[in-house]
Structure formats: C-alpha cells, structure tokens
C-alpha cells in the first residue's frame, strides 16, 4: 500500500477546512478523484488550547474530537487506493491521536497500517521560561498572562512533516502546523524540492492556501441567489490540486458533485485571511500573491499561476492560549406591534438588575438580533416585525456570568409583555495571543505508532 516516490505530478485533495467540516464530502473526494494525498485541516485558532484543557483532565484525549469519525470513514476508502492521509487532527495530543488511529485501523482489518506522528509544536515549557517575550497583539510581555497560560504551540512548517512522509506510512498526524504547509510537504517529499527554490515553494504554498478551506474553493461560502448562483450546493464537492514537479498548479473538483470551481471562486479564496498580499508569512516562505492569476482550463478546472516568494523568516509564530474569564449570555425574542420598544426596555431592565445585584463586568454587549447584531448600527432601517434581545457580558467571576442568563430568563415573568424563546449560556473564555520564537529553539521529531 506504500507508494513510490519520483513522480512528475501528484494530486492532493482538500478534505476538511475546519474541525466541523463535512465528512461525506471528504469520503466522496477520496473515492472519486484518483488522489495521491488527502489533507484534513481541522484546527481553528483556539482548538489546541481547548484540547490542552481536555488533556490535563484526561491524558489520553486532547486530539480532534472528530478524528475517530473521519478516520473510521476514510481509511476503508483511502488505504486500498493508496491515498495517504495528512492531518493536524493530533491537536494538543498527536501521540494519543496516533494511537487511536492505529486502534481504528486494527478494528477495521488493517493490522499492517502504522501511523507517523509529528511532534515538536508544543513549546509551553520553553516559553514559560521566557516571560520577556512580547505578545504581538497587545504589545505587553508574556509575563502579563503567564499564570493563566494553558497552551503554546508553534506553527510548524512543511519541513517538520516531510520526514514523517519519508517513513512511508499511510497516515501522518501533526499538532499545530501552518495550514498551507500540510499541502506543501507532500510536494517537497515527492519532488525533492529545495528550500532555496522559492518559485516552487511559492506555487506549492499557493496551492495549499487555496485548498486549506476545502469547500470554500468550490462554491462554499460563495452562493448569493440570483447574483452568484452555485449549482447543487447541497452536494458540494471538495477540491484537489494537480501539482507538477516544475510547479504547475491546476485545481479541480470531485467529479459528479455539486458546487463550482471557477475564476471567481478562486479569486475569493486567494484573498481569504490574507493581509498584505505581498507578504503572506508561512513557516516555509514569505508568499507574494500580487501577480497571481487564474485561467479557466475547462469546466471546474482552473490553472493558478504567478506566485512568488522570499526566504522564510528565522522565527516561528507561536499561538499562546490563556484563560480570560467568563462570558454569560441570554437571549429573548419579541414580535408584533412595538416589539423593538419592548426589547429595548427588556435590555435596560436586565442591566439595571445586574447593577442592583452588584455584579462587576469588564464589558456588557447588547444586540438586537434582526437590527444591529452583525454590522452595528447601520443607516435608517425600518423596524422589523420581530426582534431578539441578546445580552452578553464578560467577567472574571462565574457567578456574575451566570447572572446574565438568569436575569434574561427572569424576564419571562418579570419583564415587558410578550417575551419568548429564551436561551442562556455561560462559557469559559479562552483567548489567544502570539509570540515569535527563534527557529533553533524548536526541535521536531517523528514517532511511528504500531512499530
């Protein structure tokens, strides 16, 4: 089931763009698209921090919660076809993820399958001894949040993953890795690309960036009925890229599925989560997409070209997760004549009652859903038929957070007329800031599970 290297072209699929992504689309991609690799990108900004909190309570957990479902459905499709799986579902506990994947493979009747696990992104012990590091977002020192830190993970690059691919194992699992690096690694592995060949690294990183959100390249997060129509969106097919040894990138989509892949969907995804288009920093290079362009080759087939890059920087970006108090929230709806005035009165009452109870809040946020909850107070809109009050407050104390939901609930019998459909929740807030750490401080290692 191991594939040999030395090809001139490989096909890499984007099988997940976040932890909640659709498993069915990934299975269809793997089954129908003649892939060499499928990449499952499943880590949002806070996921590793939340995973670390779970790992502290349960040392065998802390990997992606959707790992078992994804591996169980994808292995029977991928292994017989020789499609290799690369994923950051290891999250806060890549070794445990590897063990779980190995167990599932045995349960499914693949006793030979082993798992290569990439370690080294967890730098919590290193940064705890560096309180002088500057947080990029607040400009303060790390010391300001030190007692509340729960995780610190470096965004590793493709060079951390390539040695795991060299082991030949069908499944490679990592913790925190930059999203495009998950895709660049198999290209470097297969084509022996050099870290000094910026033209190739640029095209590979471009392909990775376009694929990393899976369905967002093929018509997801795009449709606007009557203006930007997407056929068969309910059966959205996931994308892949054909990449050649000399860096030609052609994007495609799972055959016989819904969605669409064209120059418009590619342009939108190219600029997704990019700031300065001439300086998109990854651990592998500094990508410049200013002159990137797209050409429709055929239906659902687009050629992407024109990427440039400069050498990678000498540091890793490290995502630091820390406890940041609590959020209490309550919601309730009002409809019909004078609904907005009743919702406004309800909001004022809750805030006054919280004050009377002497709770302290760092911030209280009031929304009228249907009017201003997404874009703030925009221009003169006529009043809606119905409106939903949403109160959310941040505080250090859990009791104070609970009180927000309690007081919204109490509106049912103690508030304005006709309030219904109430909801409340209290959440522990996990915040993220970043620091830069010199490359030489971080060592990556590979562990093979099942050997």
């Amino acid at each position, binding site marked *: 089931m191991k594939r040999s290297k030395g090809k001139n072209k490989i096909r890499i699929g984007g099988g997940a763009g976040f932890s909640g992504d659709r498993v069915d689309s990934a299975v269809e991609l793997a089954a129908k698209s003649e892939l060499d690799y499928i990449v499952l990108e499943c880590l949002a900004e806070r996921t590793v921090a939340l995973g670390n909190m779970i790992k502290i309570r349960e040392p065998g957990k802390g990997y992606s919660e959707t790992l078992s479902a994804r591996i169980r459905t994808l292995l029977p499709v991928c292994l017989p076809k020789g499609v290799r799986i690369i994923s950051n579902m290891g999250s806060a506990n890549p070794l445990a993820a590897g063990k779980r994947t190995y167990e599932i493979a045995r349960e499914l009747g693949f006793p030979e399958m082993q798992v290569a696990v990439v370690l080294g992104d967890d730098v919590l012990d290193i940064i705890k001894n560096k309180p002088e590091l500057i947080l990029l977002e607040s400009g303060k020192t790390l010391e300001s949040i030190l007692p509340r830190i729960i995780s610190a993970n470096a965004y590793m690059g493709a060079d951390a993953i390539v040695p795991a691919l060299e082991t030949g194992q069908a499944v490679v699992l990592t913790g925190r890795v930059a999203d495009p690096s998950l895709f660049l690694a198999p290209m470097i592995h297969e084509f022996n690309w050099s870290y000094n060949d910026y033209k190739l690294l640029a095209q590979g990183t471009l392909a990775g960036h376009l694929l990393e959100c899976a369905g967002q390249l093929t018509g997801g997060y795009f449709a606007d009925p009557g203006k930007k129509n997407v056929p068969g969106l309910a059966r959205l097919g996931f994308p892949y890229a054909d990449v050649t040894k000399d860096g030609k990138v052609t994007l495609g989509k799972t055959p016989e599925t819904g969605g669409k892949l064209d120059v418009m969907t590619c342009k939108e995804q*190219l600029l997704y989560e990019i700031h300065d288009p001439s300086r998109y920093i990854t651990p592998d290079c500094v990508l410049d997409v200013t002159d*990137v362009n797209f050409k429709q080759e055929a239906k659902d087939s687009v050629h992407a070209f024109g990427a440039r890059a400069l050498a990678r920087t000498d540091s890793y970006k490290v995502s630091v997760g820390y406890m940041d108090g609590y959020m209490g929230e309550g919601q309730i709806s009002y409809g019909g004549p004078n609904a907005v005035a009743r919702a406004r009165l309800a909001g004022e009452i809750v805030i006054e009652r919280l004050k009377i109870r002497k709770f302290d809040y760092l911030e209280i*946020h009031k929304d009228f859903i249907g009017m201003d909850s997404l874009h703030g107070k925009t221009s003169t809109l006529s009043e809606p038929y119905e409106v939903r009050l949403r109160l959310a407050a941040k505080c250090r104390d859990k009791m104070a957070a609970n009180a927000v939901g309690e007081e919204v609930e109490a509106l049912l019998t103690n508030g304005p007329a006709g309030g219904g459909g109430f909801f409340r929740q209290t959440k522990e807030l996990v915040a993220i800031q970043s620091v830069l750490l010199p490359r030489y401080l971080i060592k990556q290692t590979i562990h093979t599970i099942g050997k």
Partner: protein
Amino acid sequence: MSIKVYDIAHCRTGDKGRTVNISVIAFDEAKFHYLKQHLTSEKVAKDFSPIAEGPVSRYELPKLHAFNFVVENMRGGGVTVSLSQDIHGKSLSYLMMGIVLPEN
C-alpha cells in the same frame, strides 16, 4: 443616482483576531478603476466605524481587478474574546457590499 459595491463587485471576509480582511473583486477592469477612485480606505473606515476603530489599509491587485482591505481593531476584541454574535466577522463582506458610492 448612486450605486452599491454589491452591484459591481464580489467580496469575501477572513479573520485573524482583532483584524479582519475583506476582499473586493470587481466584475471587470472598468469597475476596478471606478472602485479604485471611490472605494478608498477612508471611505471604508467611515462605513465600518460602528464596529471597528481602524485604521483601514487597502492593497491593490490589478491583475485580479481586486482589492484587499485590512480593517484593524475590531471593537470587542476579535474572535477569541469578542462578545459579538459573529465573532469571526464572517458576515462583514456584506457590510462592505452595502457601501453606497456616487455614480460617475
């Protein structure tokens, strides 16, 4: 007479903490030049002022007939600690597309 960004371009939002980026991709070259003249970073900063302190930067990608706007200092603190309903700012492309511009 006036026109909306929605009539001549399409947009997508991405987030990174307290900063969001919103692409504006003109439907053709003439509309790109029109937007270049009228959809300035100052205009976007003004229309986003209820939800962001700014500043706003505009990057040009003429080959794609596109701009990338980077809006800094979202009020409420961004994805990880924001109390907003749409903590990722995923809906903000439609605030951009609702911006009204003068007709040439």
